[in-house]
């Protein structure tokens, strides 16, 4: 599916925004504790789905793939899905996309919903082996 010109404008805005943020996450380590904890975690004491994403991004930018998975198991796969999706929408040769988007599958939303819900519940269970999933 080739994106319309109008949609591509938003993609370019998004790409510029992300490029501006990447140096920040490269040089700044969210692990330091100077940054306040997420309000949701502070109020409820629970880890939400995206918890650990900032640390995972910092790890990923430094090539620490194991560390990235350790802070949020779903973060590296989510990045791959988004790169696959937006690559499909932006990169095309002679009006044809170079590859299919993994998000266009018939059951992609349903599978994703299941994975996200299971992951979010499991990472909040204290003790082994679930502490691996905690941020």
């Amino acid at each position, binding site marked *: 599916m080739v994106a319309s010109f109008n949609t591509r404008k938003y993609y370019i805005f998004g790409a510029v925004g992300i490029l501006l943020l990447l140096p920040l996450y490269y*040089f*700044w*380590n969210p692990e*330091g*504790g*100077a*940054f*306040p904890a*997420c*309000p*949701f*975690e502070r109020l409820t004491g629970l880890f*939400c*789905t*995206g*918890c650990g*994403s900032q640390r995972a991004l910092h790890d990923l930018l430094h090539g620490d793939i194991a560390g990235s998975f350790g802070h949020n198991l779903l*973060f590296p796969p*989510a990045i791959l*899905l*988004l790169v696959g*999706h*937006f690559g499909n929408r932006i990169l095309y040769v002679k009006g044809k996309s170079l590859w299919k988007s993994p*998000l266009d599958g*018939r*059951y*992609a*939303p*349903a599978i*994703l*919903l299941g994975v*996200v*819900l299971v992951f979010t519940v499991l990472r909040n269970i204290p003790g082994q082996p679930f502490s691996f999933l905690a941020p």
Partner: protein
Amino acid sequence: MSDQLEPQKPSNYLALAIICTVCCCLPAGIVSIVYAARVNETFARGEYELAEKYSSNAKTWGIVGLVVGGIGVIIYLALFGFGFFAALMENGGQF
């Protein structure tokens, strides 16, 4: 919308829902994924108008999540930002 002609499948905004779920710690991302799944289901069943409706719901929830998350971060930084910057100064500006 005619019954004989299959219209183009409306976007399910799944990428937006993923970005929302990763960044914003908000249930809005989950709601958006649920609507994305409904878009695919209803479109596959041929209920095109319903699919369009769910598509716009998915978009709305995705955008609501991003906006509320963004505003939430700003309010939160305004409340706790002083402590954050004080800690930065103590470290001599080192992150």
